[in-house]
């Protein structure tokens, strides 16, 4: 009995610590007053209107969306190519490449940011393409992990059947392989999109005047203008977007297989 209560208390504490701050941000963003008040006195969409009235915030939001869309698609293509190779071959090269492809997951991303900034300075890379390239790099490992998982239960004989019936390799890929790994592909894309949409540590260095993503804009705003409720509205928008995406992908393929 004691143990059950202990476990329940630990669970409650953990989930409160994890979800509490996010819930408070969402609640506060609907408050009508000028200042932070909790619990909020009444409901209003005032701060959402203010968010879209600020050109810098609106611009950052749209740019974040565009970059996340573009970068996650490129990540998924690169990730598919890499996963097909990693899943079907054995040997030292494969484990070496596996390590290389997955290392950005645990590598201190701030170092990647500094390294890319310096390299881009050296070769004179413009800001926007540089930022997108960094986001692609950060997103690709997530795609690879997800696609690799769906390739592990893959029956290669299906592809052989397609080819023995006269389909070209490309046709086999699009008619057989692709539909079968679609859940992994979608989950990978979703992760790459979300990671790009919230990316901080590389974007911190690679954004520039006029080219700012939403998280960086929020960060700058918090640092220089104090915590205002428009930030809460921006956060709620970001959270809603993620929720819609997650739920629609969950509808399509079921997310439970990517939790691990």
């Amino acid at each position: 009995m004691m143990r059950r209560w202990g476990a329940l208390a630990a669970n409650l504490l953990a989930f409160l610590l994890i979800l509490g701050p996010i819930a408070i941000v969402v609640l506060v963003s609907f408050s009508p007053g000028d200042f932070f008040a909790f619990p909020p006195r009444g409901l209003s969409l005032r701060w959402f209107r203010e968010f879209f009235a600020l050109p810098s915030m609106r611009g950052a939001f749209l740019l974040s969306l565009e970059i996340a869309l573009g970068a996650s698609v490129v990540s998924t293509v690169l990730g598919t190519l890499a996963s097909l190779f990693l899943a079907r071959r054995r040997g030292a090269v494969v484990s070496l490449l596996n390590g290389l492809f997955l290392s950005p997951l645990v590598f201190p991303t701030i170092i990647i940011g500094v390294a890319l900034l310096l390299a881009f300075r050296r070769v004179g890379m413009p800001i926007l393409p540089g930022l997108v390239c960094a986001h692609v790099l950060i997103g690709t490992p997530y795609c690879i992990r997800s696609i690799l998982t769906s390739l592990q239960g893959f029956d290669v004989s299906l592809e052989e059947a397609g080819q023995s019936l006269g389909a070209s390799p490309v046709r086999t890929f699009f008619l057989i392989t692709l539909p079968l790994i679609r859940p992994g592909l979608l989950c990978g894309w979703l992760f790459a999109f979300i990671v790009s949409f919230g990316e901080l540590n590389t974007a911190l260095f690679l954004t520039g005047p006029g080219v700012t993503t939403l998280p960086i804009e929020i960060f700058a705003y918090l640092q220089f203008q104090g915590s205002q409720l428009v930030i809460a509205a921006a956060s709620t928008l970001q959270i809603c977007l993620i929720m819609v995406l997650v739920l629609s992908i969950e509808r399509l393929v079921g997310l439970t297989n990517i939790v691990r």
Partner: protein
Amino acid sequence: MPSSCAADPQGGVRKPSPRGRFWLSAGSSAWILVAPPVLYFLAFFVVPLLYLFFVSLHVPSQTELYGSRVTLDNYLRVATDSFYLRIIRRTLVAGLAVSGLTLLIAYPVALAMVRMPARRRSLLLMLLLFPLMVSNVIRAYGWIAILGRRGVVNNLLRDAGLVQAPLPLLYSVETVVVGLLTILLPYMIVCLVNALLTIDRSLEEAAQSLGAGPLRTFFHVTLPLSTPGIASGLLLVFLLTLSAYVTVQLLGGPQSKMLVSLVYDGVMSFVWPRAAALAFILLGISLTITTLMLRVLRPQRVEGRG
């Protein structure tokens, strides 16, 4: 694709194996497929890191990215300056506190989740996964909304008439630790749940039927068998703590800078070689911690037995 047979790495005169005939498993075409991601990672990951290291070995320059003279000064300065050393020590202490506390909180949670029915467990895991998708800047802002001068806590205390002036709850190392703890807790729980799920329940039952109490069973069976999860959780949390600049900056303020803040400040002051050296010191610390943790916990003991 008749040529793929000859390109089969096993080679030899044998009838074409089904695997060898398939285009993606075949020699040369597979290399063409994997070339784009490999080139991408070389161009945007490996080469920039090598260049960063190269720059860290040069003297700073006013006009160029780095001066022409090769030196180890950038590293030596950090290793001998008490300002840098104090911040490095603070970074390590905070990292250890965050990873230790997440482990302590996450373990009972993970244990409880493993014993739940699978449906409820995956629901809770989804609930844990969601915060990981929310940008860290928003999750840090959540703590500002709770602990700030006009935050939840100060509002409640003022309304209850307990304080006159708002308490300064933000901008300390402790706040950073609490913030990072909550941001990184889901990673630890997921790692532990995955490890605990692979443990064969009959081992625990065997220990109990041989007369071990629940505590003894836990410390002699469950805990040792979950070391792979503990190791990967601790590593993930510690490494993410090391590069969490935005959280440190927003919750710690200028008084509780960490190593990652020094890297950022170095870049912003355009002293590239020093920033590069600091980045590599950060990398060195993460590699050292990784090696130490794997040495101490030795997760491969468990994994080797499958």
